[in-house]
């Protein structure tokens, strides 16, 4: 290649786009690294794993008739508990809200600082990072691992491999084990699991998750990010020129030369690039990409190359930040001799934040104002109405009361909308009694007959409203249906 005139920096070629469709996997041996982003990643890993493994054991007192586990998905009883929130199956729309918020947070992260999720918080990244740490601890750093991979199997090597895979399997097993604890009372289930009293489905779930964790974090690693995950593709379509990404500042780095040559050039008053082509950024990369090719699908933007490069820059006496969170706009501006600008308040960040705030506010509002009793009604379809011997008209309904509180409630049912309705709850004595008791955190279905006297003139179809009132607290819930006549 002919060197560009005046040693001006040029943008390095992007990663090859005409690569074959099938490519054999190249094994990565990421080197250990120390620095700011590595520390952040260790701390976040500890926090996330801590939450994941320990949350099932957190207790939350809900009174005598409810489970005391802070976070619990109670599938047999169709309940979801999250600290002070208890959700019933018909409130599943809250999860829609959560998913909308989750998507928007992901988009917002991306608009501000690229693939933050991928680099720091994604379970694939966190567990792979943990598995790499185990591998490094047992087999040594990059060079040793590469060397050992080439050498044959010695007794020591076999021992190392066995130890590594055993520890991986234990972590994977623990991961699956923690997962099932979210679906039953954790301390009880731990005891049952240990004494082989737990249900088969628990062991099966642990087995499956052990297998997936071991495979995904131990063997597939960056392949998941590059080939399996849809987010890099979506992310690439969602990003813009202002989003900060882990960026090789080629305006500073190019042309690459050796330390000595660079010193010579600078002595002559000529410009020399800061990149010394030490390949440390590639060596530490968990996905094995070269960040100097620019933003690319394989880059999960974990910032480890920043740590590696900063360490090298410090050693060669050049300013750090040759690789940094930056964007192409600022590179162009620096090349043009202008000061970089950072723009966080943009249309997309405002919209994402707005949607998050709106959905969050709606969820909070509905959650804080929802009633803890409810009533559902189903009109008999056959017959729609019955004419009685005295000319009265009777309609039959199946009514279900929902008591979402953890104590027994006494509910009174009334109907309005048709003239002088007489209610009869089948099974309640005397016939005029419309008081029903509903057990704690339960529903109760009753058959209700509503009769309108012959004197009342009613239409073919009349709106009727059922109201249920908690006799003690006065809470009410209503539901509308129809009363049919001849």
């Amino acid at each position, binding site marked *: 290649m002919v060197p560009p005139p005046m040693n001006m920096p040029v943008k390095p070629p992007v990663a090859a786009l005409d690569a074959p469709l099938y490519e054999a996997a190249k094994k990565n041996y990421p080197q250990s690294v120390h620095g700011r982003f590595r520390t952040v990643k260790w701390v976040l890993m500890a926090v996330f794993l801590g939450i994941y493994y320990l949350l099932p054991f957190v207790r939350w007192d809900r009174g005598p008739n409810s489970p005391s586990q802070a976070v619990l998905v109670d599938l047999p009883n169709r309940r979801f508990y999250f600290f002070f929130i208890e959700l019933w199956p018909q409130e599943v729309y809250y999860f829609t809200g959560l998913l909308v918020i989750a998507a928007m947070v992901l988009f917002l992260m991306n608009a501000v600082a690229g693939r933050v999720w991928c680099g720091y918080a994604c379970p694939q990244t966190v567990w792979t990072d943990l598995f790499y740490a185990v591998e490094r601890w047992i087999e040594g750093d990059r060079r040793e691992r590469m060397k050992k991979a080439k050498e044959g199997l010695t007794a020591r090597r076999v021992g190392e491999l066995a130890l590594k895979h055993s520890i991986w399997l234990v972590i994977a097993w623990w991961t699956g084990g923690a997962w099932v604890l979210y679906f039953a009372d954790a301390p009880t289930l731990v005891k049952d699991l240990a004494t082989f009293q737990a249900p088969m489905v628990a062991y099966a779930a642990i087995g499956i998750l052990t297998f997936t964790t071991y495979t995904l974090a131990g063997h597939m690693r960056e392949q998941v990010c590059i080939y399996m995950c849809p987010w890099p593709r979506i992310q690439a379509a969602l990003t813009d020129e202002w989003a900060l990404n882990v960026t090789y500042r080629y305006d500073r780095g190019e042309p690459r030369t050796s330390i000595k040559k660079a010193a010579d050039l600078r002595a002559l008053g000529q410009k020399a690039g800061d990149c010394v082509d030490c390949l440390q950024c590639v060596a530490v990369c968990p996905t094995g990409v070269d960040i100097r090719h620019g933003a690319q699908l394989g880059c999960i933007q974990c910032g480890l190359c920043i740590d590696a490069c900063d360490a090298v820059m410090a050693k060669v006496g050049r300013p750090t930040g040759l690789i940094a969170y930056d964007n192409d706009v600022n590179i162009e501006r620096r090349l043009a001799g202008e000061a970089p600008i950072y723009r966080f308040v943009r249309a997309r960040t405002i919209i994402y934040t707005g949607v998050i705030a709106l959905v969050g506010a709606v969820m909070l509002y509905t959650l804080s104002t929802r009633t803890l009793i409810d009533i559902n009604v189903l009109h008999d*379809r*056959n*017959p729609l109405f*019955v004419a009685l011997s005295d000319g009265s008209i009777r309609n039959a309904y199946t009514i279900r009361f929902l008591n979402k509180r953890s104590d027994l409630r006494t509910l009174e049912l009334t109907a309005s909308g048709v003239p002088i309705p007489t209610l009869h709850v089948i099974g309640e004595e005397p016939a005029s009694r419309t008081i029903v008791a509903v057990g704690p955190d339960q529903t109760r279905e009753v*058959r209700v007959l509503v009769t309108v006297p012959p004197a009342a003139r009613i239409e073919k179809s009349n709106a009727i409203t059922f109201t249920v009132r908690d006799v003690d607290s006065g809470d009410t819930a209503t539901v509308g249906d129809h009363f049919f006549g001849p």
Partner: protein
Amino acid sequence: MAKNEIDAVTGTATTGHEWDGIKELNTPLPRWWLWTFYACCIWAALYMVAYPAWPLVSSYTSGLLGYSSRANVAADMAALQALRGEKAALLAKADLADIEKDQALLAFARAQGRAAFGDNCAPCHGSGATGSKGYPNLNDDDWLWGGTLDALHQTIQYGIRSGNAQARENQMPAFGKDGTLKKDEIVQVANYVLSLSGQPTRQGVDLAAGKQLFADNCAVCHGEDAKGNQELGAPNLTDRIWLYGGDEASLVETITNSRGGVMPAWADRLDPVTIKALAVYVHTLGGGR
């Protein structure tokens, strides 16, 4: 004439076969595909040995595992019976009057009753138990033989004119056919009966004569006040519900030729628990007394 030749364009080995200068690239099936195929072949062979597979002249090979879909159904049915067993036993033991006081038992009895009703009663009474001409509506509060739980239980068990020794039995005379009443007398009675439920009567018909005829011929069963008698299965003629129609023509027809439906004795066909469940189901349709 196999030889190892590499195709220059694709870099793939050829099979060594050549037709008029056209060579075939050697692109064998992927190994995983091939092994899956072999595994399927082995599976199929084992399956034929283990499970019913080959039709024979009058039977089929039954397989080593002794699998049978008929046996599965039988097992499922047995499991269902076992599942219901506990509650069915409770239902069998429970006093008829107590069933409706127990939420769980009531729900179980109603569910059982609804299914049995659909299978056995719906052909005449309709799936919604609304009946039709000649087949009583079981939702309303008008009962020929009584709408209490016990009365319903009795009726379902032994039927009406079913031939069972304990069946509900009555016979309305065919006043016209037997010649007891003359045609114009029948019209008089019919119009008198119309007037009992507040319906308009035909102009010029002597209602007083009708009343006298009613007292002489009908009141024995239907009562002086015509409100019927459930002991005898005699319908109330003063209300608005008519099994065979409440207009003059229908009444004349009824008085002339008599009426009388038949209901089977279900004790001969259904088990006592199902009959109990049916009684509770019908009782809770709404009309139960």
